[in-house]
Protein backbone atom coordinates (compact mmCIF):
# COMPACT_ATOMS: atom_id res chain seq x y z
CA UNK A 1 0.00 0.00 0.00
CA UNK A 2 1.91 3.10 -1.17
CA UNK A 3 1.44 6.12 1.07
CA UNK A 4 2.87 9.52 0.14
CA UNK A 5 3.32 12.42 2.53
CA UNK A 6 4.61 15.77 1.21
CA UNK A 7 5.51 18.45 3.73
CA UNK A 8 5.26 22.01 2.43
CA UNK A 9 6.05 25.54 3.56
CA UNK A 10 2.99 27.13 2.06
CA UNK A 11 1.86 30.07 4.14
CA UNK A 12 -1.46 29.55 5.81
CA UNK A 13 -1.44 25.83 5.21
CA UNK A 14 -1.37 23.66 8.29
CA UNK A 15 1.04 20.87 7.60
CA UNK A 16 1.05 17.75 9.62
CA UNK A 17 4.62 16.80 10.51
CA UNK A 18 3.67 13.17 10.52
CA UNK A 19 7.23 11.92 10.11
CA UNK A 20 8.40 13.72 13.24
CA UNK A 21 5.50 12.30 15.22
CA UNK A 22 6.20 8.79 13.99
CA UNK A 23 9.98 8.69 14.19
CA UNK A 24 11.04 11.66 16.29
CA UNK A 25 12.98 13.06 13.33
CA UNK A 26 12.41 14.99 10.14
CA UNK A 27 15.05 13.83 7.72
CA UNK A 28 13.64 14.04 4.21
CA UNK A 29 13.29 11.92 2.27
CA UNK A 30 12.50 8.94 4.47
CA UNK A 31 11.05 5.60 3.48
CA UNK A 32 9.19 3.57 6.08
CA UNK A 33 7.73 0.11 5.76
CA UNK A 34 4.81 -0.09 8.17
CA UNK A 35 2.47 -2.73 9.42
CA UNK A 36 -1.24 -2.08 9.16
CA UNK A 37 -1.29 -0.88 12.77
CA UNK A 38 1.36 1.74 12.01
CA UNK A 39 4.29 -0.11 13.60
CA UNK A 40 7.56 0.52 11.77
CA UNK A 41 9.33 -2.51 10.33
CA UNK A 42 11.99 -0.75 8.31
CA UNK A 43 13.30 2.80 8.14
CA UNK A 44 15.51 4.21 5.41
CA UNK A 45 16.24 7.87 6.06
CA UNK A 46 18.18 10.52 4.21
CA UNK A 47 21.69 9.70 5.48
CA UNK A 48 21.23 6.07 4.54
CA UNK A 49 19.51 6.77 1.20
CA UNK A 50 22.09 9.25 -0.06
CA UNK A 51 25.01 7.04 1.02
CA UNK A 52 23.42 3.91 -0.37
CA UNK A 53 22.75 5.54 -3.74
CA UNK A 54 26.29 6.85 -4.11
CA UNK A 55 27.83 3.45 -3.33
CA UNK A 56 25.28 1.44 -5.31
CA UNK A 57 24.00 -0.39 -2.24
CA UNK A 58 20.39 0.58 -2.95
CA UNK A 59 18.57 -0.88 -5.90
CA UNK A 60 15.05 -2.12 -6.55
CA UNK A 61 16.32 -5.68 -6.06
CA UNK A 62 18.03 -4.95 -2.74
CA UNK A 63 14.98 -3.10 -1.51
CA UNK A 64 12.73 -5.95 -2.59
CA UNK A 65 14.88 -8.29 -0.47
CA UNK A 66 14.39 -6.04 2.57
CA UNK A 67 10.67 -5.95 1.93
CA UNK A 68 10.65 -9.73 1.65
CA UNK A 69 12.25 -10.02 5.10
CA UNK A 70 9.57 -7.70 6.52
CA UNK A 71 6.75 -9.71 4.95
CA UNK A 72 8.19 -12.99 6.18
CA UNK A 73 8.61 -11.54 9.68
CA UNK A 74 4.92 -10.61 9.79
CA UNK A 75 3.81 -13.98 8.41
CA UNK A 76 6.03 -15.93 10.81
CA UNK A 77 4.89 -13.87 13.77
CA UNK A 78 1.28 -14.77 12.91
CA UNK A 79 2.23 -18.46 12.93
CA UNK A 80 4.05 -18.15 16.25
CA UNK A 81 1.04 -16.33 17.74
CA UNK A 82 -1.13 -19.22 16.57
CA UNK A 83 1.09 -21.64 18.48
CA UNK A 84 3.22 -22.96 15.63
CA UNK A 85 6.45 -23.78 17.46
CA UNK A 86 8.19 -24.75 14.20
CA UNK A 87 8.08 -21.13 13.08
CA UNK A 88 9.82 -19.74 16.19
CA UNK A 89 13.38 -20.14 14.99
CA UNK A 90 12.86 -18.54 11.58
CA UNK A 91 10.78 -15.82 13.21
CA UNK A 92 13.64 -14.99 15.59
CA UNK A 93 16.07 -14.82 12.64
CA UNK A 94 13.81 -12.40 10.78
CA UNK A 95 13.27 -10.35 13.93
CA UNK A 96 17.04 -10.00 14.28
CA UNK A 97 17.41 -9.10 10.61
CA UNK A 98 15.05 -6.14 10.85
CA UNK A 99 16.28 -5.07 14.25
CA UNK A 100 13.22 -6.00 16.30
CA UNK A 101 15.47 -7.86 18.72
CA UNK A 102 19.17 -7.50 19.45
CA UNK A 103 21.86 -10.18 19.29
CA UNK A 104 21.61 -10.98 23.01
CA UNK A 105 17.86 -11.50 22.88
CA UNK A 106 18.28 -13.55 19.75
CA UNK A 107 20.78 -15.78 21.52
CA UNK A 108 18.27 -16.43 24.28
CA UNK A 109 15.48 -17.08 21.78
CA UNK A 110 17.40 -19.82 19.96
CA UNK A 111 19.13 -21.37 22.97
CA UNK A 112 18.93 -25.15 22.77
CA UNK A 113 17.57 -25.17 19.21
CA UNK A 114 18.72 -27.94 16.90
CA UNK A 115 20.49 -26.16 14.06
CA UNK A 116 21.60 -27.53 10.70
CA UNK A 117 25.05 -26.41 9.47
CA UNK A 118 23.37 -24.24 6.85
CA UNK A 119 21.16 -22.58 9.42
CA UNK A 120 24.13 -22.04 11.73
CA UNK A 121 25.96 -20.28 8.90
CA UNK A 122 22.92 -18.15 8.10
CA UNK A 123 22.43 -17.26 11.74
CA UNK A 124 26.12 -16.34 12.08
CA UNK A 125 25.74 -13.97 9.12
CA UNK A 126 22.55 -12.39 10.46
CA UNK A 127 24.15 -12.00 13.87
CA UNK A 128 27.28 -10.40 12.41
CA UNK A 129 25.12 -7.97 10.47
CA UNK A 130 23.08 -7.07 13.55
CA UNK A 131 26.19 -6.46 15.67
CA UNK A 132 27.77 -4.37 12.90
CA UNK A 133 24.68 -2.20 12.46
CA UNK A 134 24.32 -1.68 16.21
CA UNK A 135 27.96 -0.69 16.86
CA UNK A 136 28.15 1.58 13.80
CA UNK A 137 24.88 3.29 14.73
CA UNK A 138 26.19 3.87 18.25
CA UNK A 139 29.46 5.23 16.90
CA UNK A 140 27.66 7.58 14.54
CA UNK A 141 25.21 8.82 17.17
CA UNK A 142 28.17 9.66 19.42
CA UNK A 143 29.45 12.00 16.73
CA UNK A 144 32.32 9.65 15.90
CA UNK A 145 34.23 10.52 19.09
CA UNK A 146 37.46 8.52 19.52
CA UNK A 147 36.16 6.45 22.45
CA UNK A 148 33.14 5.34 20.44
CA UNK A 149 35.32 4.50 17.45
CA UNK A 150 37.60 2.39 19.65
CA UNK A 151 34.62 0.56 21.15
CA UNK A 152 33.19 -0.06 17.66
CA UNK A 153 36.57 -1.22 16.42
CA UNK A 154 36.85 -3.70 19.31
CA UNK A 155 33.48 -5.25 18.44
CA UNK A 156 34.31 -5.36 14.74
CA UNK A 157 37.62 -7.08 15.41
CA UNK A 158 35.76 -9.76 17.38
CA UNK A 159 33.58 -10.34 14.33
CA UNK A 160 36.65 -10.44 12.12
CA UNK A 161 38.31 -13.04 14.31
CA UNK A 162 35.12 -15.11 14.32
CA UNK A 163 35.37 -15.25 10.52
CA UNK A 164 31.88 -14.06 9.56
CA UNK A 165 32.05 -10.61 8.04
CA UNK A 166 28.96 -8.40 7.82
CA UNK A 167 27.38 -7.80 4.45
CA UNK A 168 24.77 -5.34 5.69
CA UNK A 169 24.34 -1.59 5.12
CA UNK A 170 27.24 -0.57 7.35
CA UNK A 171 29.65 -3.23 6.12
CA UNK A 172 31.82 -0.49 4.61
CA UNK A 173 32.27 1.07 8.05
CA UNK A 174 33.13 -2.37 9.44
CA UNK A 175 35.89 -2.74 6.86
CA UNK A 176 37.06 0.82 7.54
CA UNK A 177 37.49 0.02 11.23
CA UNK A 178 39.23 -3.29 10.49
CA UNK A 179 41.45 -1.61 7.88
CA UNK A 180 42.45 1.10 10.32
CA UNK A 181 43.52 -1.55 12.80
CA UNK A 182 45.31 -3.54 10.07
CA UNK A 183 47.23 -0.46 9.01
CA UNK A 184 48.42 0.05 12.59
CA UNK A 185 49.49 -3.53 13.19
CA UNK A 186 50.83 -4.24 9.69
CA UNK A 187 48.96 -7.56 9.58
CA UNK A 188 49.32 -8.41 5.88
CA UNK A 189 46.41 -10.83 5.74
CA UNK A 190 44.11 -8.37 7.46
CA UNK A 191 45.29 -5.58 5.17
CA UNK A 192 44.52 -7.67 2.08
CA UNK A 193 41.15 -8.75 3.40
CA UNK A 194 40.29 -5.15 4.33
CA UNK A 195 41.20 -3.96 0.85
CA UNK A 196 38.88 -6.55 -0.67
CA UNK A 197 36.11 -5.70 1.76
CA UNK A 198 36.37 -1.95 1.18
CA UNK A 199 36.39 -2.38 -2.59
CA UNK A 200 33.41 -4.76 -2.46
CA UNK A 201 31.34 -2.39 -0.32
CA UNK A 202 31.86 0.63 -2.54
CA UNK A 203 34.70 1.96 -0.45
CA UNK A 204 36.62 3.28 -3.45
CA UNK A 205 34.70 6.53 -3.42
CA UNK A 206 34.50 7.07 0.34
CA UNK A 207 37.81 5.67 1.50
CA UNK A 208 40.14 6.22 -1.43
CA UNK A 209 43.07 7.62 0.62
CA UNK A 210 42.78 4.75 3.12
CA UNK A 211 42.85 2.20 0.31
CA UNK A 212 46.02 3.79 -1.02
CA UNK A 213 47.62 3.72 2.44
CA UNK A 214 46.72 0.06 2.80
CA UNK A 215 48.29 -0.79 -0.54
CA UNK A 216 51.46 1.01 0.41
CA UNK A 217 51.53 -0.88 3.72
CA UNK A 218 51.06 -4.16 1.86
CA UNK A 219 53.80 -3.33 -0.62
CA UNK A 220 56.12 -2.40 2.22
CA UNK A 221 55.46 -5.75 3.92
CA UNK A 222 56.13 -7.60 0.67
CA UNK A 223 59.60 -6.05 0.25
Amino acid sequence: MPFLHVTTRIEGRKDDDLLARMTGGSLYPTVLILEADGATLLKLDRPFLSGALSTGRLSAASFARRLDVCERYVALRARVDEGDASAKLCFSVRALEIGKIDAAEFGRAIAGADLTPELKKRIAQVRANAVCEAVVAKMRSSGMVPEAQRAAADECLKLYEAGTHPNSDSADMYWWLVADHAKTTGNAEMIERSLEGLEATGGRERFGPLLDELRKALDARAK
Partner: protein
Amino acid sequence: MDARNLRAAVLAAVAALSSAAHGGGQEDKLRSKLSQPFVENVEWVTDYKEALRRAKEERKLVFAYFTRSYYP
Protein backbone atom coordinates in the same frame (compact mmCIF):
# COMPACT_ATOMS: atom_id res chain seq x y z
CA MET B 1 1.44 -4.65 -1.95
CA ASP B 2 1.52 -5.53 -5.66
CA ALA B 3 5.16 -6.28 -6.47
CA ARG B 4 5.15 -4.32 -9.70
CA ASN B 5 3.52 -1.31 -8.08
CA LEU B 6 6.03 -1.43 -5.27
CA ARG B 7 9.00 -1.61 -7.61
CA ALA B 8 7.62 1.35 -9.56
CA ALA B 9 7.22 3.28 -6.33
CA VAL B 10 10.73 2.44 -5.14
CA LEU B 11 12.46 3.22 -8.43
CA ALA B 12 10.56 6.44 -8.84
CA ALA B 13 11.19 7.54 -5.26
CA VAL B 14 14.88 6.71 -5.54
CA ALA B 15 15.11 8.66 -8.80
CA ALA B 16 13.41 11.60 -7.13
CA LEU B 17 16.32 11.95 -4.71
CA SER B 18 18.48 13.40 -7.47
CA SER B 19 15.89 15.82 -8.79
CA ALA B 20 15.22 19.27 -7.42
CA ALA B 21 11.94 21.08 -7.10
CA HIS B 22 11.86 24.07 -9.36
CA GLY B 23 9.80 27.17 -9.36
CA GLY B 24 9.84 30.32 -7.34
CA GLY B 25 6.94 30.21 -4.86
CA GLN B 26 6.08 27.47 -2.44
CA GLU B 27 2.92 26.64 -4.38
CA ASP B 28 4.95 26.25 -7.55
CA LYS B 29 7.38 23.97 -5.75
CA LEU B 30 4.55 21.79 -4.50
CA ARG B 31 3.03 21.60 -7.97
CA SER B 32 6.42 20.71 -9.41
CA LYS B 33 6.95 17.98 -6.83
CA LEU B 34 3.50 16.48 -7.41
CA SER B 35 4.01 16.44 -11.17
CA GLN B 36 7.17 14.35 -10.94
CA PRO B 37 6.99 10.83 -12.43
CA PHE B 38 7.36 9.15 -9.04
CA VAL B 39 4.10 10.79 -7.93
CA GLU B 40 2.16 10.55 -11.16
CA ASN B 41 3.07 6.97 -12.02
CA VAL B 42 2.07 5.41 -8.70
CA GLU B 43 -1.38 5.15 -7.13
CA TRP B 44 -0.44 6.84 -3.87
CA VAL B 45 -2.76 7.09 -0.90
CA THR B 46 -2.20 10.45 0.78
CA ASP B 47 -4.33 9.99 3.88
CA TYR B 48 -2.41 8.11 6.57
CA LYS B 49 -5.40 6.59 8.33
CA GLU B 50 -6.86 5.50 5.01
CA ALA B 51 -3.55 3.86 4.07
CA LEU B 52 -3.55 1.88 7.33
CA ARG B 53 -7.20 0.94 6.90
CA ARG B 54 -6.65 -0.37 3.40
CA ALA B 55 -3.47 -2.16 4.40
CA LYS B 56 -5.36 -3.95 7.16
CA GLU B 57 -8.24 -4.80 4.85
CA GLU B 58 -5.97 -6.09 2.10
CA ARG B 59 -3.50 -7.69 4.53
CA LYS B 60 -0.58 -5.72 3.15
CA LEU B 61 2.29 -3.62 4.44
CA VAL B 62 2.49 0.12 3.87
CA PHE B 63 5.30 1.65 1.81
CA ALA B 64 5.42 5.19 3.20
CA TYR B 65 7.46 7.84 1.39
CA PHE B 66 7.98 11.12 3.23
CA THR B 67 9.28 14.02 1.22
CA ARG B 68 9.02 17.80 1.10
CA SER B 69 8.08 20.20 -1.61
CA TYR B 70 10.59 22.93 -0.72
CA TYR B 71 13.82 20.95 -1.14
CA PRO B 72 14.90 17.77 -2.96
